[in-house]
């Protein structure tokens, strides 16, 4: 089903994508969002039509899925994601994610922090245990391939995508952690090295329905050969093709 398409700017034309899929993915921009253009590029490469969504607007413009990208929204001065959570667009996203339609939502880095502040996902992120910003090529184990965003990975596949943040240490109380583990809702676990002191090596989690996924590392920075980890990595593209595939199949 995935086809191969030529992108003029792709060195590697062998990535399985869904050109002109017709799937519309919204990418939200807050003041201080940084990786919105990157997330849009990744969704486009995967074959989606990208719809920019402005935080202050309150229409989702009929998108089929939403990405909340990374950055330092509102400077992260209060707490990462704390102010963005109150944007009109977030109200719409929270409603749509919890609705029967279960809008697929991916929160990356600051987007993940916004999702926890919005209570779409449990837990929170605090400063890295070493207190430094860290940018590194990070190995992750994909432990749940039943979410909307991970269907094209293999169970326990180890992938490498960039990690870059200051407040990346995932914390939650013991009860929440136990529930996440018991329900298989830990989607990504740090492999090889826990870069920030996250509980249970958690890098990313999902909600019960599997439509909302949040993670600290950045799949959108690993979608083009030559611009990803070690100048070769493209492991991140499957986030975006997974959701397109799911949406195409669901619409049949």
């Amino acid at each position, binding site marked *: 089903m995935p086809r191969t398409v030529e992108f003029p700017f792709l060195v590697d034309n062998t990535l399985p994508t869904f050109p002109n899929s017709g799937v519309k993915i919204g990418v939200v921009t807050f003041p201080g969002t940084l990786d919105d253009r990157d997330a849009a590029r990744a969704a486009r490469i995967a074959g989606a039509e990208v719809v920019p969504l402005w935080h202050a607007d309150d229409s989702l413009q009929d998108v089929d899925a939403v990405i909340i990208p990374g950055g330092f929204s509102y400077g992260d001065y209060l707490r990462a994601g704390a*102010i963005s959570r109150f944007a009109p667009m977030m109200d719409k996203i929270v409603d749509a994610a919890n609705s029967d339609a279960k809008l697929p939502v991916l929160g990356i880095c600051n987007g993940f922090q916004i999702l926890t502040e919005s209570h779409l996902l449990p837990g929170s992120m*605090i400063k890295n245990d*070493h207190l430094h910003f860290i940018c590194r090529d990070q190995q992750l184990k994909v432990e749940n391939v039943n979410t909307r965003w991970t269907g094209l990975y293999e169970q326990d596949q180890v992938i490498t995508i960039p990690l870059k943040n200051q407040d990346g*240490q995932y*914390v939650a109380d013991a009860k929440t952690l136990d529930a996440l583990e018991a329900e298989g809702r830990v989607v990504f676990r740090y492999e090889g090295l826990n870069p920030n*002191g996250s509980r249970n090596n958690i890098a990313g989690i999902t909600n019960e329905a599997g439509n909302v996924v949040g993670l600290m590392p950045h799949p959108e920075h690993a979608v083009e050969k030559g611009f990803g980890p070690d100048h070769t990595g493209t492991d991140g593209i499957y986030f975006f093709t997974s959701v397109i595939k799911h949406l195409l199949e669901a619409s049949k």
Partner: protein
Amino acid sequence: MPRIVVDVMPKPEILDPQGKAIVGALPRLGFTAFSGVRQGKRFELTVDGKVTEEILAQAREAAATMLSNPVIEDVVAVTVVADAE
């Protein structure tokens, strides 16, 4: 003008990496009497006019919903400071 002071602290069970770094640094400067440090946040909300019960309630609401994240933080005090020095 009166201010409402909101104090927010990391929950006791949550590791406070900044506090940890400070407690590690204190003995190096000769401050050996302290076995622990936790770093919190203090917000000062300035009010034009009198602090009514309603305004105080609003401050409590803001403290609980926006100024703190109940997953990792506690609002430990919401107090009125009447006199602005």
